[in-house]
């Protein structure tokens, strides 16, 4: 088992190094310079700034320095925000993204499960069609359309919830809802299929013939078995949602990390692009690593098969 974990860990490091290298190379091939105000910089000033930032060094030297700094845990200072270190930016901005992601997952699971269960229980009736219609709408309407609609209707027209900003609990509802629509749809459809599978299985028939009430059959025998696939995908979905809050952050003026990513790419903020890529990929890699290990524990076949390679 330890060998298996060690092997996975080495793979993780190699993946990480490859991501860093590829991003570094791609980024330095971006046209234009990373300076915030580049429209206004004369050729002379540009050269001076490049020298001060060490950008006049050959790429190989910059790459070597960067790797050494990462090993020390130093992601450097952002070009656009010269007084802030990249690690600080991540520390200050990630909580909002994470919170929003988690809240939206709660919404998705709750609403998705209810829709899915209703649809399965009322299979091929109008309830089923209704719930699946909502699910399809959820998949098809992108958040940049849904967000402004919710913002205008709920926030401005009806005035029930704040239209945007990030002050109190009430500010969380609309963005979390917007972000959760896609996952609501996924959860609902998965739950419906899996419920239907279980409902048609032999042990449910047995339970019925034992004379158990419909309520007890659903809660005790159906739900517990049908929900398993949802639990399996929840991990990846969570990471996906947390790293994908960008559009929603923009629409609802949320101080999260997603906004920085796009800004950084757009303004060639080398250090910030690298820092965020490293952070996000670490997040994904670690989750994948843990999932692998968890599978290894649950299902020895996986561990053995990979161990032999």
């Amino acid at each position, binding site marked *: 088992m330890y060998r298996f974990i060690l092997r996975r860990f080495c793979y993780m490091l190699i993946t990480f190094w490859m991501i860093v290298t590829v991003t570094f190379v791609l980024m330095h091939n971006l046209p234009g310079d990373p300076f915030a105000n580049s429209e206004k910089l004369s050729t002379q000033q540009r050269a001076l700034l490049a020298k001060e930032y060490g950008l006049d060094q050959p790429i190989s030297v910059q790459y070597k320095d960067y790797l050494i700094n990462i090993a020390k845990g130093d992601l450097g*200072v952002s070009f656009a925000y010269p007084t*802030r270190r990249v690690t600080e930016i991540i520390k200050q901005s990630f909580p909002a993204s994470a919170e929003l992601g988690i809240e939206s997952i709660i919404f998705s699971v709750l609403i998705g499960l209810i829709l899915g269960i209703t649809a399965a229980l009322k299979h091929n009736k109008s309830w089923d069609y209704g719930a699946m219609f909502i699910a399809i709408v959820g998949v098809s309407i992108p958040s940049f359309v849904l967000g402004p609609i919710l913002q205008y209707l709920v926030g*401005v027209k009806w005035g*029930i919830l*704040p*239209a*945007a*900003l990030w002050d109190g609990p009430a500010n969380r*509802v609309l963005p979390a809802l917007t972000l959760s629509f896609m996952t609501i749809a996924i959860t609902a459809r998965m739950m419906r299929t899996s419920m239907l599978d279980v409902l048609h299985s032999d042990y449910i028939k047995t339970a019925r013939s034992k004379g158990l009430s419909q309520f007890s059959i659903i809660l005790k025998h159906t739900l517990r078995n049908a929900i398993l696939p949802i639990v399996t995908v929840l991990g990846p979905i969570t990471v996906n949602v947390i790293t994908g809050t960008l559009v929603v952050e*923009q629409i609802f003026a949320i101080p999260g990390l997603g906004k920085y990513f796009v800004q950084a790419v757009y303004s060639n903020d080398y250090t910030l692009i690298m820092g965020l890529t490293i952070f996000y990929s670490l997040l994904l890699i670690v989750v994948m690593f843990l999932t692998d290990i968890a599978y290894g524990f649950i299902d020895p076949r996986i561990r053995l098969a990979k161990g032999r390679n």
Partner: protein
Amino acid sequence: MTNAKRFIAGISTTVLLAGLLTGCGGNTAQSGSAGNSKQLLKMTLLAEPQALDTSVANAAVSFDILNAINEGLYRLGANGEPIPALAASMPVITNEGKTYTIKLRDNIKWSDDSPVTAKDFEYAWKRTLDPKTKADYAFMVAWIKGGDAFMNGKGSADQVQVKAIDDKTLTFTLENPIPFMTAQLSFPVFFAEKQEFVEKYGDKYAADADKLLFDGPFQLSKWDHEQSLTLVKNDKYWDKDNVKLNEVDVQIASDNNTLANLYQSNAIDVARITRDQVDQWKAKPDYQISPQLYITYVEMNEAVPALKNDKIRQALALSIDRSNLVDIVFHDGSQAPTGFVPNGTMDGNNKEFRKDAGDVLPKYDPAQAKTLLAQGLKEAGLTSFPTLKFTGDDTEDGKKALEFIQGQWKQNLGIDVTVESIPHKLRIEHGQTHQFDLLLFNWGADYNDPMTFLDCHESTSSFNESQFKDPEYDQLIEKAKAEPDGAKRAQYLVDAEKILVAKMPVAPVNFRAYSYLVKPNAKNILFFPYGSEWDLKNASVE
């Protein structure tokens, strides 16, 4: 059964919680009306301020806050005129307009109770020039004798001719006379910094609210990065009696639609809006237009053979219906250009430049353009106009403008261009390396003077992207730069602009404006045409 119970309990708790949240929301939204007797104003910034270090700050969002929490020797008034701020009076200018001597006000204090002295200015300006500070706007301080050499790493701080004679007197000598210098001292790059404080925090200076010193109308009490900033009235400010606001809540929101929605739900008192929202608000008292010292033009690269001919360039310029373009593409109070220097730019001699120079840009005239094109092609020895590439930013405005102008050329001149929208950074690089045929270009003023729009067409300028070369033009610009007499200087600049009209190295298409929504009970907020967007010193909420 226990699991099922827990499950149900879990669901009901969360649903209840969601209900509760919704309840709270109702209250928040309703109580969010515009400020009142509390003198609380709710503003927004379009982005997180990059830095609140006066040396390093390089964007309007930073200048807005710096202008509130700090102050220069002068502050701009409603008409852009300099008013003594930390300076006690207007500067004494000698040596043919090159040497300035400025007395500081008594009773000016930093928020740590220490006095603001002339040494704080000398230190700050030299720190800005130091290449290690990496200050984008150092070039303005480099107008001072010895500044350019120090900025470029060739001289030393001691050779820069700015000096605190005593605690209350600052003197500096410029390389050339600059008629707008007094007004420019209101720009954050000319603010004071306290050496001891800056050095105490080093790299972290000005990174957070507690790493800043204040000498302006407000103090920054809270800075939640990328979310909001809170300004409170500065009781140590020399002119605190004229500061009416107790608190300014500044939220950061970048989406224009979001801003309009926040404004409509009373969560903010001021919002900048764009094209799509203008018609809805145009007739209401909330709507205000702030014309900017900002021009958009088409650069025509003279290294391209077809664009080397004056008449062809004029034809391209004359065939664009600018009034229509401004209304269809921008639709935000922007105006059709009448010259190469935007409306509202002062001439350095206390008059508006456009009034001196008049409407010099020839009117939209498709017939004349067609004739000019035919003549030009003949002169250039070409049988037809080649298909050129027309490049611009991939922003919404950028793309719309490109398509509109492409359509005008097709319709009025029968010529084809290929439109190419590319990311901003790439567009800048293409411009500065002259890798383009036709390029849509934006230029905003750094200071309120025609020079900021005219010296970029000098043959030696880093910003002469069209590669326009005209010795007479260069000469006029250089003469204007050295001329101490305001009237003569203004005339040189008027003459220089006339050369641009005749040669048309670039075709102006827009004088930009910003559209704002301002709650009618929010009074005396100043909107500026360059540098900071707004000033709240005398603002109040009724």
